[in-house]
């Protein structure tokens, strides 16, 4: 605040000759997860922008090198923390690719189901938050209510609403609970109803459409060049979905469509996510029908999977198995692998290097929104300050994932 009891002379008043530099963030309600955008303005139009990330960098890749393979799950959860099961599944698949094992069918369906629930909650949050930042507070609250229903299911299954750490190399931590299928089948129509209600509020609203359409446009070639994947890439018209292009788990048995946009602006990104919620609901319905109710959850290899606790306390062999896996880690064969799945924001890649011991040598996380956010400065140059908000919001940059 300027001191008011100062001597002021006429000659000291100056109009600034330099363009105004404005700092958005990192502590800012619209900067999802601490991003700092330093913009240079001419009036309200942005002439230059510098997007600075790294405020949520927690050194995951360094910390992964200090534990065992199963100890990476809590880190992986906290990457894209609005859809943590997708990260869990992605990492499990990467290590299992190195081990050369496939989990039993029941586990595969379970992984797909929990992953799609996480994807729905991710898209609900993204769209709701974007609408809220434009001033539409109600759809945000309704989306959060729907998200709570999904989180109730996840809490029942995994024990936590957000940071589950539920995946394991070789299966899942626990089999599905008795009421899993019933809960999911009961929740899906309610979620769909909420989505419909939010859309009714937003999609015919002139202000909403004006703020989103033709704002933050990117062409197909640029998006591919920058490494965009996921709903943001599909909104430009490229029908690339890892679940279709390189099917994994049981996605090849499930019928679903891949929503593709045309213009690559904010509105298309918003609509891609809305449609994906519907498609995820479709996948979940099929999963609930197809998932076997009985059968093993984990693979049957004592070098990878922990034994039952009663056996650990009573027999020496199970104690040794538990000891070896927990203390020394799973001995993944030496080598390197790159494994990719469709996470909430796009292709989440894990590049793992193993030296044959139980400790990872290098665990590289390829965050989908890192590639998407690097384009932000190009998208907002030439736009006005208020356009930064929906553009940034529609990219769904999750700080945890971008900064790992």
């Amino acid at each position, binding site marked *: 605040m300027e001191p008011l009891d100062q001597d002021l002379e006429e000659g*000291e008043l*100056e109009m600034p000759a330099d363009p105004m530099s404005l700092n958005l963030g990192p502590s800012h309600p619209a900067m999802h997860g601490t991003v700092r955008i330093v913009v240079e303005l001419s009036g309200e139009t942005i002439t230059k922008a510098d997007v600075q990330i790294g405020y949520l*960098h927690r050194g995951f890749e360094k910390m992964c090198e200090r534990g065992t393979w199963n100890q990476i799950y809590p880190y992986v959860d906290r990457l894209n923390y609005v859809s943590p099961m997708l990260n869990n599944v992605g990492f499990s698949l990467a290590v299992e690719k190195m081990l050369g094992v496939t989990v039993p069918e029941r586990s595969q369906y379970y992984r797909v189901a929990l992953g799609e629930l996480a994807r729905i909650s991710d898209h609900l949050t993204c769209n709701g938050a974007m609408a809220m930042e434009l001033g539409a507070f109600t759809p945000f609250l309704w989306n959060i209510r729907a998200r709570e229903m999904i989180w109730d299911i996840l809490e029942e299954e995994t024990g936590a609403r957000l940071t589950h750490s539920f995946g394991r190399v070789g299966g899942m931590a626990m089999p599905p609970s008795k009421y899993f299928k019933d809960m999911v089948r009961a929740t899906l129509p309610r979620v769909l109803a909420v989505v419909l209600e939010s859309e009714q509020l937003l999609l015919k609203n002139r202000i909403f459409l004006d703020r989103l359409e033709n704002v933050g446009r990117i062409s197909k070639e640029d998006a591919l060049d920058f*490494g965009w*994947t996921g709903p943001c890439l599909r909104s430009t018209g490229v029908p690339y979905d890892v679940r279709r292009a390189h099917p994994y788990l049981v996605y090849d048995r499930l019928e679903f469509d891949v929503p593709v946009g045309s213009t690559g602006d904010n509105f298309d990104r918003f609509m891609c996510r809305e449609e994906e919620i519907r498609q995820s609901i479709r996948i979940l319905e099929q999963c609930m029908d197809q998932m076997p109710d009985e059968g093993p959850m984990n693979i049957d290899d004592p070098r990878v999977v922990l034994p039952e606790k009663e056996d650990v306390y009573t027999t020496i062999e199970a104690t040794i198995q538990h000891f070896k896996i927990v203390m020394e880690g799973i001995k993944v064969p030496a080598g390197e692998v790159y494994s990719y799945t469709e996470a909430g924001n796009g292709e989440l890649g894990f*590049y793992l290097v193993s030296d044959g011991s139980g400790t990872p040598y290098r665990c*590289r996380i390829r965050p989908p929104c890192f590639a998407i*956010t690097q384009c932000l400065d190009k998208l907002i140059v030439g736009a006005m300050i208020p356009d930064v908000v929906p553009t940034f919001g529609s990219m769904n940059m999750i700080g945890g994932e971008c900064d790992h």
Partner: protein
Amino acid sequence: MSIVVIDALKQRFAGAILETHAQFGDDTAVVDPDKWFEISRFLRTDSRCAMNMFVDITAVDYPDREQRFEIVMHLRSLERGHRVRLKARIGDPFGEADDDDDDTVQIDSVTPIWQGANWFEREVFDMFGVVFRGHPDLRRILMYPEFKGFPLRKDYPANKIQPLIEFRKVQEKLPPFGPDEGMSFGRQTHEYHRDDPQMIEARAKKPKSKVLLAPSQQKAPASQQKAAVTQQKAPSTPQKES
């Protein structure tokens, strides 16, 4: 399917392809770092490869090797659907881990070929200290600019503590408030502040700041204000002329 890419590479750059393997199903080629840019451009432009989707660039540190860093790039082709991993081994045995000016380990940047490599290469620079020649804007991305060292190198201990950094000198940014600045409407009523020699001294030394106010918004001349205050304080100790 991706073997097509490896074959095309081998056909065109026979000498520069040092090793290939397909461990766990991922086709990989280890190439000569001097040909890094050429090979990348070939992969983008050649019709058999058509690698137009940039996926990832990262590095791995093998301190026991003479060429300690291995730069790893993953690419994908949208039309053909195949993927390839390209690796190059670079290193300088005399580089010091803590030296922030160390630019001895270098490789060409592929940002001119795929714009998406921009931030990924910045991250490799930030975490490992590898300099990318030709990068438009090579600075730290995840760490703050005053960070010392390169964290993901194997000889950087995970529990190392960084030195405290100086308050940044940014143009036109005022340092934190002095005792007489800010909350001026409240301060003036507190008697003890007027006599505080530190405050009086600070007021004398304060630089004249440029104020963006319309003439109508200017306050009354300071002399008037001082007279008002002096009247208040007359009974107590005499004031110094500021």
